[in-house]
């Protein structure tokens, strides 16, 4: 099916639910029914059937009588092993049909299998899969070897098989089944996940390094999404090793070269998944040690692949927004962050990213001088997390400098953890500007001394200069009188007669049109559907012709009927 190569359109579905700061176990797995796999033709994307989440429900919801009545209690471990084996067939299908959707499905399956992973389980699956031990499988088992629960006896027996198998294969004609590289990498990813979940950082880091070394010489397109995931965990492990960032000696600094090499290779091979993943990992790396200029250079020198997965695009936009915000380019940062928030996954378990990007969005909106919408703070997943930010917004909108100072001090640790502290420090001038604007709106004339007292400024001269600057920046419409020391506000004309409504409308229209264009571009049509459509169109045309004929024949009889009605009018 080499024709599929040309038809790989942009995959804009969420293909993984992994967020960088929350271990998401999405209950809404989009697992397609397994029977569709057997079809030879390319099938239509069927909406996910809730029934496939049955395995999760067994484990998570203990009290469901329904499940217990229907089948005998399914052993979750056996189910996990069965799942993993099913995934292996999917991987083989992916290679033979050269369709990335199967590998993506396998990757999406990881959260459901994750809970059951253990050294014992993994070792058993590996032993059962590899009928004859290969060097890679040996390495996999060795990595697991130190974990508890490792079935040492079975492993030793299996290793002995290696020696006997070698002598046996020379005699028999049947060659042992070839294990694909994809299967190796899939098992390695499972091991990485297992290490990460058990917080076994050093072995995880070591194993990942070996995995990366194994992946480098392999140049198979079917490995792309798996390799991207491998790099992700590699970077994650190194972030957790001491010394942690943002210390200048952080361990993550050492992997920059590896990641850059990986980026180069991926770009040469046109491996878009790995490219996207590695770019975001590098940006995250630079930002964690505050190397803003280097991150900026990376962005200007690389091109983020257009057909990257939705989640990677969301991450990329988030990092881009952060960099632009630090560089005082607030409008660009705002655009990027709006995009990131829109593309963030909506499932409740994966809300970490949405929270992080919303926090940054709120701060950038404040820095631009707008007050964020109150409705944002009322969303259920965000309410508690955003409460310090809500207070911040209230302080800024009331123009109260002292309250603002107190808040920044009170919540400084929270803000530092969110890496929004430096941006919030810049908000002081916004508070003052808002205060000035409120005064200008409420007073026709106010003395500078009063302003200085109310705003908490240091002196009258400062007040005068600040108001003059505000007038020049267009924050308020007023004039100053130096001799008598007061500010007189000008009347604000009718907003509707100015261009403002038009500008607001045109920006919204532009956004809707852009959305429409993006959706059209992102539409995927299944393979042979157009032939079906042609057939249907043909049938429709034939039917029409028959109908027309009938009408022509029947008209002679019916002429009097409808015609008679008309004459009556």
């Amino acid at each position: 099916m080499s024709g599929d190569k040309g038809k790989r359109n942009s995959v804009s579905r969420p293909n993984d639910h992994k967020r960088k700061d929350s271990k998401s176990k999405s209950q809404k797995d989009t697992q397609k029914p397994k029977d569709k796999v057997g079809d030879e033709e390319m099938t239509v994307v069927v909406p996910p059937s809730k029934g496939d989440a049955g395995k999760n429900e067994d484990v998570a919801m203990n009290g469901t009588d329904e499940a217990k009545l229907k089948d005998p209690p399914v052993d979750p471990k056996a189910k996990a092993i069965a799942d993993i084996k099913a995934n292996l067939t999917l991987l083989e299908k992916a290679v033979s049909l050269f369709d990335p959707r199967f590998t993506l499905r396998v990757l999406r399956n990881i959260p459901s299998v994750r809970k059951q992973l253990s050294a014992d389980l993994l070792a058993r699956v590996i032993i059962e899969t590899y009928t004859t031990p290969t060097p890679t499988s040996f390495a996999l088992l060795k990595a697991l070897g130190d974990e508890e629960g490792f079935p040492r006896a079975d492993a030793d027996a299996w290793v002995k098989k290696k020696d006997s198998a070698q002598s046996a294969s020379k005699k028999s004609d049947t060659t042992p089944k070839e294990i694909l590289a994809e299967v190796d990498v899939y098992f390695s990813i499972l091991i990485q996940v297992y290490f990460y979940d058990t917080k076994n950082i050093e072995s995880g880091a070591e194993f990942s390094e070996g995995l990366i070394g194994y992946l480098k010489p392999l140049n198979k397109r079917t490995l792309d999404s798996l390799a991207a995931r491998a790099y992700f965990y590699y970077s994650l492990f190194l972030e957790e090793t001491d010394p942690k960032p943002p210390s200048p000696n952080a361990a993550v600094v050492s992997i920059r070269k590896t990641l850059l090499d990986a980026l180069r290779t991926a770009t040469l091979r046109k491996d878009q998944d790995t490219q996207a993943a590695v770019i975001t990992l590098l940006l995250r790396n630079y930002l964690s040690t505050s190397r803003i200029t280097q991150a900026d250079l990376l962005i200007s020198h690389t091109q983020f692949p257009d057909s990257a997965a939705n989640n990677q695009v969301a991450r990329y936009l988030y990092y881009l927004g952060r960099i632009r915000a630090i560089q005082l380019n607030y409008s660009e940062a705002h655009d990027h962050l709006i995009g990131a928030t829109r593309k963030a996954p909506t499932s409740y378990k994966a809300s970490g990213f949405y929270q992080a990007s919303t926090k940054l969005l709120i701060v950038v909106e404040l820095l631009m001088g707008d007050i964020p919408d109150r409705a944002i703070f009322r969303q259920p997943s965000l309410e508690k997390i955003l409460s310090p930010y809500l207070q911040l917004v209230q302080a800024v909108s009331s123009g109260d400098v002292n309250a603002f100072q107190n808040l920044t001090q009170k919540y400084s640790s929270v803000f530092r953890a969110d890496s929004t502290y430096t941006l919030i420090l810049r908000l002081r001038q916004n508070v003052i500007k808002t205060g000035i604007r409120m005064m200008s709106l409420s007073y026709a004339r106010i003395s500078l001394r009063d302003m200085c007292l109310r705003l908490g400024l240091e002196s009258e001269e400062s007040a005068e200069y600040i108001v003059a600057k505000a007038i020049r920046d267009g924050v308020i419409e007023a004039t100053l009188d130096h001799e008598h020391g007061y500010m007189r506000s000008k009347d604000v004309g009718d907003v509707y007669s100015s261009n403002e409504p038009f500008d607001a409308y045109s920006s919204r229209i532009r956004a809707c049109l852009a959305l429409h264009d993006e959706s059209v571009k992102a539409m995927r049509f299944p393979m042979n559907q157009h032939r079906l459509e042609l057939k249907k169109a043909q049938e429709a045309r034939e039917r029409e012709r028959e109908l027309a004929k009938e009408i022509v024949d029947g008209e002679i009889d019916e002429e009097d009927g409808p015609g008679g009605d008309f004459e009556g009018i």
Partner: protein
Amino acid sequence: MPSAVGGISLEQVQHNLQQCLARKDAAGAQAQLQKAKLILLQQNSLVPSEGVPVGQLKTARSVLEVGALLAIRRRDPDSFVRYYSQLQPFYEFSGLQSSPSPNKSQVTGLYLLLLLSQGDYAGFHTLLESLIVSEGINGGKSVEDDIYIKYPVDLERSLMEGSYDQVWRKTNGRDVPGEEFALFSEILVHTIRSEIASCAARSYPSLSIASAKNLLFLDSEGAVSEFAQEQGWSLEEGRIHFPGLPEEKKGQEGDQKEVISHMVQYAKDLESIV
């Protein structure tokens, strides 16, 4: 490893350098600096690497810092930036983390001030970000406590807010942490003067020359008249009149054209959808 060039050792050169600095002998210091750099190059310690002993790296670092300070005194921003970039790998080198340089904050503060006077606010904030983040992990020392860094940060804050009298007071007062910092004051005052001028032009209907003198921090009425003429303001009977704003009338015509072009664009887009 021999640390000598033609019989002069690095320590000797450094000693001479310090003496020239104490005597304020700029030319002599410059000559010593050249010699020192040559020796460092031969010893391969201009860029920190694992093989070089830590003591040498420390000497290299202090030599470069002296070079940076001298560059500022010479009012040579380019060479200062060069020294600063050369110093960065020293500040980040893991082997030297245990013994931080005493002059580091001074050099960093000067660099911040340079960025500010050049109007590069993005670079200023980028550097400040890394400083605040590293202050967070160190826990104790904060940006507020370090006078060399506090000075440019406060200046930037006052500049952004628009309280130019604070800027004036700070650059002239005793808060200036070092003589090198004072060298920037002139540039900064010039910057704020132009800022105040543009603000004043928009906010005051007219201004007496005496008040303008106070506002603009100028010394005499003659200077005020000169400045006003440079800005293109008109002087009448001891008052300065600012030119009105010309853009308001043109707005309307331009708007109509804009509306028309927008409508045409919408019609085109709708057509492509429908």
